[in-house]
């Protein structure tokens, strides 16, 4: 065989690379698009089931209802990107709800809020330390934190709902009113999603977090302090869960230790429906937001359509499966 033939082959290799990219980005686009598609399908279906579904009022309702889950989902996304999991978000939200109602009575609003967020961050830091530095399994550590934080919230509140009284008025006002036509909690969620988007896609921190989930050892051997970054995502998750808890107090006017029971499951479901992989490294902010909205729309439309309670749970299960099937659609069709 001649050199020429070999050279022709050489060009072929370059060509094939180009095609590979095409194929890969097509798949990547589908991964993105898959979540969108599910969302669109759901919205279309929902609007045939109820004519109020697309009313401004209802849309605002859904946004407000999902603001807590959405904010926690941001933190969970960061954790999940590092291959971790945080089961304690619901309990930390409860701690945030109770402690905000308590502290608001003694400190000026911004100080109180700062303290509550710090408390959530500390809870996250404890889990994060154990996971990142002692390499303990995140599932069990955050399960323990889930139990402990809930217990702590109950002790703080003595099991009673905590009334912030008159001191809570500004917070309540924030939680129940609108700005630019949007409920404030929803606006806060938007803002946090926007910040998360910038951090994850354009910051050194976000890039490292993503890389850790893909290949932790390579990141460590690039001279990066992996453990601190891993710990940081739990701190973020804890702080955001606290904020979600404060929002509940703001919306309901009372700090209850019962807030967020089993919320971790909804939050994780939202993140995964948004296409993140629990094996780390894969997931995006926008898709997570859509994942949250998908969950929200499912719950909302079943209420609007008057599906009886027990049946809602069965439908919810089926719709989640359908969403995940669509999300992962390509990967098994290709096989």
């Amino acid at each position: 065989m001649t050199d020429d033939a070999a050279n022709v082959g050489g060009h072929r290799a370059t060509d094939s690379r180009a095609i590979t990219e095409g194929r890969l980005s097509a798949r990547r686009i589908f991964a993105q698009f898959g979540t969108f598609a599910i969302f669109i399908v759901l919205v279309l279906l929902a609007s045939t089931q109820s004519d109020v579904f697309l009313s401004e009022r209802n849309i605002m309702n859904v946004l407000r209802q999902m603001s807590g889950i959405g904010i926690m989902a941001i933190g969970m996304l960061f954790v999940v990107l590092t291959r971790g999991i945080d089961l304690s978000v619901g309990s930390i939200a409860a701690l945030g709800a109770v402690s905000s109602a308590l502290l608001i009575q003694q400190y000026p609003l911004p100080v109180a809020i700062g303290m509550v967020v710090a408390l959530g961050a500390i809870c996250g830091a404890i889990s994060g330390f154990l996971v990142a530095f002692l390499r303990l399994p995140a599932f069990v550590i955050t399960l323990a934190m889930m139990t402990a934080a809930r217990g702590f919230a109950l002790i703080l509140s003595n099991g009673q709902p905590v009334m912030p009284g008159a001191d809570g008025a500004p917070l309540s006002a924030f939680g129940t009113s609108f700005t630019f036509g949007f409920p404030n909690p929803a606006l806060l969620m938007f803002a946090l999603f926007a910040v998360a988007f910038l951090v994850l896609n354009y910051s050194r921190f976000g890039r490292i977090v993503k890389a850790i989930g893909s290949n932790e050892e390579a990141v460590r051997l690039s001279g990066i302090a992996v453990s601190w970054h891993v710990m940081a995502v739990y701190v973020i998750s804890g702080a955001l869960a606290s904020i979600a808890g404060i929002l509940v107090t703001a919306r309901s006017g009372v700090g209850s230790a019962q807030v967020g029971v089993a919320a971790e499951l909804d939050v994780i479901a939202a993140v995964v429906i948004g296409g993140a992989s629990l094996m780390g490294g894969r997931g995006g902010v926008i898709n997570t937001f859509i994942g949250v909205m998908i969950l929200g729309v499912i719950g909302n439309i079943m209420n609007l359509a008057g599906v009886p309670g027990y049946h809602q749970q069965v439908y919810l299960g089926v719709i989640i499966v359908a969403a995940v099937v669509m999300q992962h659609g390509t990967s098994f069709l290709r096989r």
Partner: protein
Amino acid sequence: MALVELDNITKSFSGIRALSGVNFALQAGEVHALVGENGAGKSTLMRVLGGEMRPDHGTVSINGEPVRLTGPIDAIRRGISIIHQEMALAPDLSVAENIFLGELPARIGWGELRRKARALINRLGFDIPPGALVSELSVAHQQVVEIAKALSREARVIVFDEPTAVLSMGDAQRLLDIIRNLRAEGVGIVYISHRLDEIFAISDRISVLKDGRNVDVVTPDKATVDDLIRMMVGRPLSQMFGEKPPTTIGDVLLKVTDLDLPNGVGGVSFELRKGEVVGLGGLVGSGRSEVARAIFGADPIRLGAIELHGKPFRPRNPKQAVARGVNLVPEDRKGQGIVLDMEIAKNMTMAKTGPVTTLGFFRAARERKVVDGLIQSLRVKLGHPSDPVSSLSGGNQQKIVLAKWFHSGGDVVLLDEPTRGVDVGAKTEIYSLIHRLAAEGKALLIISSEHAELFGLCDRVLVMGEGRLRGELRPDDYSEENLLTLSIGAAAQDRQEALA
């Protein structure tokens, strides 16, 4: 009649041709080598033979009869076993179970299973406890388990896909002996490797693939190494190791004194000077990687002193090492060197983000400029910098690791097996890069199990054996024999002293 025959095999992956009309035949009692650049399609061709992939066109014949392989199990039943490039063992299971994984009885008799496993391993001339977990074995022994697995199935065709990439010279030699024995028993063997000396040592015939096509089939006595390289790369590579540009060797940059590690490696003292390329040779398991990792702060140090630029240096983690300008190209590229599914550009700037970020946020334009510069200067062959590293060939992946430290700009660069699994073309480019780094006044320490590589590249070669530094070779003393004598001989002496 050929034992197996692959005729006109074509295989595409969603539109990209990995194989176009490839022919390949294997006789009983023959070692048929398969060579080609990274991505030439060697592994893919063997996957077709192993029933793991169905070809788009072409036929597979066994004993002259065309067959349609329905899957790996079908191929195994027909006597075809593949020892994969990526080890296909279950690390949490015992050696015995791994050997018999496909044909475990419904009720397991452990005694029986272990006995049978031991017999197979002994037949290969090794003594590995069949009850040990595979995760506890060295890579070389894992390789033996893979071979035993193939033997257990009474394979008549065994495919070795780069078996020696992870082996030392000694272990590689033993493997070649095993292969010769198998050949004598009438087994047909396909042997894939990037180490051309092995190819010449063992094969009866050599098939060259390039870009998914046959180039030629030659016999080792009728072709030279240069012929093979030209067929694989498409151009002659007269100067494999290139010419080291004249550099003045300067002051001592790194000084290691009596380094002692918790894992039994100890008594290591040496110096690295500006502009120097120093080799670190020895058998696998002699502790070379451990030394490099310890200096890089990746593993703990027990005792000893390190000086960097004349100042004490005791890194507790890689971050501190990188901050002081010590860099490591780790031995396991995919596991430790790169983030496979992250973009090429991001991998390149990962170790040093300062110049491309403001307040922790990336500046796209600046990053792009840095990345383009690196791509040009290292001559990385890629589609687009925003493709994942996984889209690159092995050699180019390795260049990304080098680019990362190139950008980071440390003075001391430790390279652990920098050309493992890399084809000849890419190898020469990596060698010229190493020369360039030395010319820039950096100090380089190169660990390699390919002795020719050490001799071709290095100003001097340190030799380790059994976790100790045994001595040093100067260019005049460069020979495989000297290296092995230092590495093993000194150890044997140690043992004798201990007995006396």
